[in-house]
């Protein structure tokens, strides 16, 4: 069990008021708040150790490099990767998927090949593949979802064929919170001879994720959704696949050597070892330090406890929301198959009205498509309101949220 009151002391922002009400932050699927430990670690880096990493001999650069490499190792251990060479630092999930789409997709996809995604994907797991399909003349295929938003596994598996080169699926839907059986999909993809990419943006921050157990070829996730700063994220890739891939971007840091043949007037370039091959330019060292501290914070809480806490809140809120007459809950009705993401609507009000109402009472939620327009079109919804929980949210906050929903209902 989490000691939520103690946790809340680490988040100064939760003490502030918004519109004269205590802040209730229920927009955690978009981004999370940051504990003082993470802010202190980032400040300490810039205050005491800031330098560009790698290839400098001075003390500050050595210290920065040690911190940066420690961050790689911390990430690798957190997701049980075989080593830090399998964890590439990127800006976030979007860049991680784009990296695979461009660096792997452009060189391995050809006319008629298929990229299999699902209807529940975030735009960041659709749009890069649409762009690459346009460039390679491959086709993007969409696996179906059931009426409750759950994945139709049979549909997805039946769509796999010799043409399917990669299967890309979110571990947890950012709209419904449903947890997909990604192990089953990865196994089916591998039996079909396809690669499997998992969008872990909504799973890695909320539950134990073990890449060896999942056997996925790629896993993408963002630091800012798990207490770390914005602008840092991770692409996990199996070493043997990353080694075969060509770089995503060129520049400093990602090369071993750029030698120039004076006679031929030509460059000869060799790539850096992993993960440097995919980290062109001076990396976001401060962000990596923040991510390392965020992971340490989550590990101290225990990811099983994080998951259990969100399950408790989900089980608590769902029946209460159902009691509010004008509220409709979307997605699965069973709290045991989902994470702490609650998509809902209020009869007669747009999702933006609902979000503005709640904002007036200091409660922050999301409204709109949540970057998942295809799923909303499947549900025939113009948009949805979405409340989402994290480690610092409490039952008392849920009670206040329900009280305000009941007030809105009277409007």
């Amino acid at each position, binding site marked *: 069990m989490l000691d939520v009151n103690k946790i809340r002391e680490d988040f100064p922002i939760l003490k502030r008021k918004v519109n004269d009400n205590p802040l209730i932050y229920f927009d955690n699927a978009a981004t999370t708040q940051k504990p003082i430990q993470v802010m202190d670690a980032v400040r300490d880096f810039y205050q005491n150790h800031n330098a560009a990493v790698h290839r400098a001999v001075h003390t500050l650069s050595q210290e920065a490099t040690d911190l940066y490499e420690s961050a790689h190792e911390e990430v690798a251990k957190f997701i049980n990767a075989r080593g830090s060479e399998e964890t590439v630092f990127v800006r976030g999930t979007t860049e991680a998927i784009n990296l695979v789409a461009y660096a792997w997709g452009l060189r391995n996809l050809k006319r008629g090949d298929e990229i299999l995604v699902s209807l529940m994907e975030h735009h960041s797991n659709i749009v890069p593949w649409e762009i690459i399909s346009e460039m390679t003349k491959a086709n993007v295929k969409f696996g179906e979802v059931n009426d409750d938003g759950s994945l139709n596994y049979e549909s997805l598996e039946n769509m796999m064929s010799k043409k399917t080169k990669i299967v890309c699926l979110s571990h947890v839907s950012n709209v419904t919170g449903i947890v997909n059986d990604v192990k089953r999909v990865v196994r089916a993809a591998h039996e079909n001879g396809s690669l499997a990419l998992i969008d872990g943006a909504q799973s890695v921050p909320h539950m134990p994720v073990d890449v060896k157990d999942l056997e996925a070829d790629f896993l993408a996730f963002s630091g800012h959704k798990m207490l770390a700063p914005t602008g840092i994220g991770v692409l996990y890739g199996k070493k043997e696949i990353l080694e075969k891939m060509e770089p995503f971007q060129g520049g400093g840091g990602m090369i071993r050597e750029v030698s120039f043949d004076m006679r031929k007037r030509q460059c000869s370039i060799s790539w850096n070892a992993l993960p440097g091959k995919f980290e062109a330019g001076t990396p976001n060292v401060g962000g990596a330090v923040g991510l390392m501290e965020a992971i340490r914070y989550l590990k101290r809480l225990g990811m099983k406890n994080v998951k259990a806490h969100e399950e408790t809140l989900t089980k608590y809120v769902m029946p209460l929301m159902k009691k509010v007459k004008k509220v409709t809950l979307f997605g699965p009705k069973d709290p045991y198959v989902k994470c702490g993401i609650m998509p809902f609507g209020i009869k007669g009000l747009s*999702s*933006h009205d609902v979000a*503005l109402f709640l904002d*007036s009472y200091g409660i922050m939620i999301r*409204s*709109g*498509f949540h970057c998942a327009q295809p799923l909303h079109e499947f549900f025939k919804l*113009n948009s949805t309101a979405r409340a989402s929980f994290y480690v610092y949210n409490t039952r008392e906050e849920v009670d206040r949220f329900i009280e305000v929903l009941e007030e809105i209902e009277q*409007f």
Partner: protein
Amino acid sequence: MVSVEDYVARTEGTCGKEQDVIVMFKFDRKDEAVKKILAKATLKKSIAGIIFELTFGKYSFRLYGSGKAIFRDLQNKEELNALLSDLLS
């Protein structure tokens, strides 16, 4: 002549099929803006002086005491500016 820019910090088209526009008033002038709009528009209903459903001519919209307003069915930015200019004058 009232300048809309004097009061408005930002306008944002909403994400979703509704295509609503949310207007955020400048923090230091939001109370003044809310007061002016309440004096001009017709109140249909409100909750605790925090949320107001209003009409003004052919337009219906919601105004929030927090300094935001949501407008629907506007054709373009010029129409929004003209409406805001009338409401804030």
